[in-house]
């Protein structure tokens, strides 16, 4: 099955949509001058001219060439592809939320403001932090915001020499990139044999040029940093701050908080941990939570509860200012709020417990056929190395991943973190049942077996998709990025 571009289906004069006729007085319409020629556009843009049914069929067919959590297991490590509740989708379509303008008088938006206010309170409890902002639109945007606050904090203190961010080498790419866009230099910290932060290396690199240490805990190997309290103490002792990347928060909900671990600033990914849909890449939401120290630097406006209801507070001279156009991705916040209401305190804790249970179960069931470099005991995800398959059979991690597609599974995250060679990072999430996990394990093992018996077959996968593996070099050498 293939679907042509809609523009290729275009036919002059065909229409999928009509507007009501303009019903202003004739005289006015005739008298109304056009835009001055100097600023007037004359050339049309090439957009499809098709029927409504063409539009419907086009996107319906495209949807059949996509795979989401609703279609099958999606064990994409570090992305937490859990089930996105239908209730949240229903609520996010309510007119009372979709048809509210962000600049209406706050007396008319108390509903939306109360959801934001209460969501922030819940996220505070969950992270063990005191304050926060919902403005950032994604995880990386949260990092940007959090580090910007760190920057402002030191500027305010006059400690302008704090120009470095220490980041474990296994960190997500957004961490160093976010540090960079905020004008920090990035210094990498090594890992020890347990896959955790190398304390000696950390100690060696900690000095008064360090602004913050940015960590994910559990880290990207799915391993909990057991020395975290010690690390926080070391970092704070050097006057630096602790930044928590919430990408892996789904491992510890209700079990532990970044606040108790000593972190000063935390970003969350509502589209991971709080079950809002990923939408094919977004919109997400990346709230940032902080303790008292950083509160003055939070973006504007803050939401306050006053005697006359919720208000937007624009005061706060130390605020870093706005980080997005309005108040954040409200409809994503709404979905996350619905999820938290559903789960409640015990439900969130249970979600993490079962996410960890699932990961450990799969790891255990795979550990005899592939290497798990840092041991199979993990938190909510784990990383395997297929190096032996590469060396013995010429089959790479990518080949195994592609073969999973033919079995109906979305592949795990490939080649990350880079300290594991031929890595696949598997995160089942708590949404998957024992039966689904067993079926996945069976499929995975059968592919590994086939990789030994018939490596060429595996290297040619996938076979069941509309296209096979694509020529990525050609995509760059002969770029075709638009019709």
């Amino acid at each position, binding site marked *: 099955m293939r679907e042509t571009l809609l523009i290729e289906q275009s036919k002059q004069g065909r229409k999928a949509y009509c507007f009501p006729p303009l019903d202003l007085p004739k005289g006015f319409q005739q008298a109304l001058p056009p835009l001055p020629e100097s600023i007037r556009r004359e050339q049309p843009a090439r957009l499809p001219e098709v029927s409504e049914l063409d539009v419907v069929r086009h996107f319906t067919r495209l949807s059949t060439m996509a795979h989401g959590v609703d279609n099958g297991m999606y064990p994409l490590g570090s992305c937490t592809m859990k089930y996105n509740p239908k209730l949240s989708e229903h609520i996010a379509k309510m007119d009372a939320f979709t048809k509210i303008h962000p600049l209406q008088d706050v007396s008319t938006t108390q509903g939306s403001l109360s959801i934001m206010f209460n969501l922030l309170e819940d996220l505070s409890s969950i992270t063990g932090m005191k304050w926060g902002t919902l403005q950032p639109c994604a995880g990386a945007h949260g990092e940007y915001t959090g580090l910007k606050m760190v*920057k402002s904090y030191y500027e305010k203190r006059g400690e302008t020499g704090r120009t470095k961010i220490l980041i474990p080498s296994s960190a997500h790419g957004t961490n160093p990139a976010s540090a*960079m866009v905020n004008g920090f230099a990035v210094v990498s910290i090594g890992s020890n044999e347990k896959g955790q932060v190398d304390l000696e290396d950390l100690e060696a690199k900690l000095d008064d040029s360090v602004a913050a240490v940015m960590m994910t805990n559990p880290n990207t190997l799915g391993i909990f940093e057991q020395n975290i309290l010690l690390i926080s103490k070391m970092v704070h002792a050097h006057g630096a701050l602790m930044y928590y990347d919430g990408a892996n928060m789904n491992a510890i909900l209700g079990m532990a908080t970044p606040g108790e671990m000593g972190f000063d600033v935390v970003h969350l990914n509502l589209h991971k941990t709080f079950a809002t849909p990923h939408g094919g890449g977004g919109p997400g939401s990346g709230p940032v939570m902080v303790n008292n120290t950083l509160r003055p630097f939070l973006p504007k406006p803050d939401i306050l509860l006053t005697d006359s209801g919720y208000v937007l507070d624009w005061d706060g001279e130390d605020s870093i200012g706005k980080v997005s156009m309005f108040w954040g991705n409200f409809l994503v916040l709404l979905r996350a709020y619905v999820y938290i*209401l559903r789960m409640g*305190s015990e439900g969130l804790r249970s979600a993490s417990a079962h996410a960890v249970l699932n990961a450990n179960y799969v790891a255990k069931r795979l550990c005899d056929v592939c290497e798990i470099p840092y041991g199979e005991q993990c938190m909510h995800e784990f990383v395997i190395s297929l190096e032996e398959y590469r060396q013995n059979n010429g089959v790479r991690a990518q080949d195994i991943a592609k073969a999973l597609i033919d079995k109906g599974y979305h592949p795990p995250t490939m080649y990350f973190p880079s300290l594991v060679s031929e890595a696949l990072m598997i995160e089942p999430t708590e949404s998957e049942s024992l039966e689904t996990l067993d079926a996945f394990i069976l499929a995975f093992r059968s592919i590994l077996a086939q990789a030994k018996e018939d490596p060429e077959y595996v290297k040619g996968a996938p076979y069941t998709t509309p296209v096979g593996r694509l020529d990525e070099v050609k995509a760059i050498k002969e770029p075709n990025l638009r019709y």
Partner: protein
Amino acid sequence: MIYPYIPHTDEDRKIMLEAIGLSSMEELFSGLSEDILLSDSVPISHGRTEDEVQRMIDSIAQRNVRGIPFLGCGCYDHIIPSTVEALSSLPSFVTAYTPYQAEMSQGLLQAIYEFQSMICEITSMDVANASLYDGANAASEAASLMVGAKRHASVVLVSSTLHPFTLQVLQTWAKGTGKSLRIVKEKDGVVDLSLLSSLLDSTCAGLIVQSPNRYGLLESYEGVAEILHEQKALFAISNDPLSLAMQKSPGQWNADIAIGDTQSLGLPLAFGGPSCGFMAVKEALLRKLPGRLVGLTEDGKGRKGFTLTFQAREQHIKRERATSNICSNQALAALMTTIHLSSLGWDGMLEAANQSYAKAHYLAYHLAQLPGMTLVWDKPFWCEFPLVFSDSKRLRKFMQELRNEGIFAGVRLSTLTRKVKDELVLLVAVTEKRSREELELYLAAARRVMK
């Protein structure tokens, strides 16, 4: 112990724990020391059933009050075809991740490719990315691009007529990074480009302007690109993309970067988000474009297929050498815009823009007749215009009286700028969606108050 969205039965847990070699769920967290493990549950409420949540939300929803919105300032109430919600809700779109695995994501990739193409068409640019967070962040990404594209340049010129929030986001962007903004002041409600040459020096990476600008006024950029390019500075224009059905596009002004937000193309008001930032550039800047890019290529059998491409630019590969940290974008909102534009076509887009223009001018023309409020600047505008009131008491009464008729009369500029001098300025937005009856209702109420 049954919690929503968790499929495990007691039996399952037993089997699984046994397989792992543990005897309790607690042991799964044995890696967490006691001083980290919470002794108590976190202080949020207990779980609720679907029915309870729906009731609670229904009651919260009643505290949102709807009116006939003549509100704009970056978020507009345009007509959206029914296809947009229906098709963008298809579960394979909604519950997918970024299409890293091209073979099982052709549909999603193709939709993004179509989005990129449409943005290029509308802006008359060469290449567009798969979306950015919103219009304001598109501006800061443009600033980053500029600074990254010119050696030793750290200053970005910005028009004082940018949307106040865009300007604030840019100020945040510059904060603490050694980069800075240099404001190009306005004259008669539009950017005063006669100041450009004097402000422009070798430290300047480029200029960002906006049209329609913060007042709703349209700006002209004749000759601006040439002045900037002579200094190797880049030119970025931010537009409401729907206005580009009527006014010259960034490409036609010879800009290097086109930015904006597609909220006006198929996205609901939604209290301001999600919307969908976009950026399109000239071909020469392709490798400096932030965000994701989808390209068309072939598989081993020569079958055409779409894939994420030029990923080497991105943070997950380039890490601290990346020029942007963006990872998640607004893909589903971009899909909504793609469906919207597919439904409207160019004729529909032009019609929406033209009708907005006509209706805004109809309302403006009649309001301008009333005492106590003026359209100060004689500049072309599109669907939004600034009314300046003679005193703030009158303005407040005006807004209240219209509110009593169910009308949200406009946005006070001071709401955005928090500046006293802007308190008398009311920005009124009129889209094609406002019916003649609504316009007359507005006018009748206005006449009553302002007589």
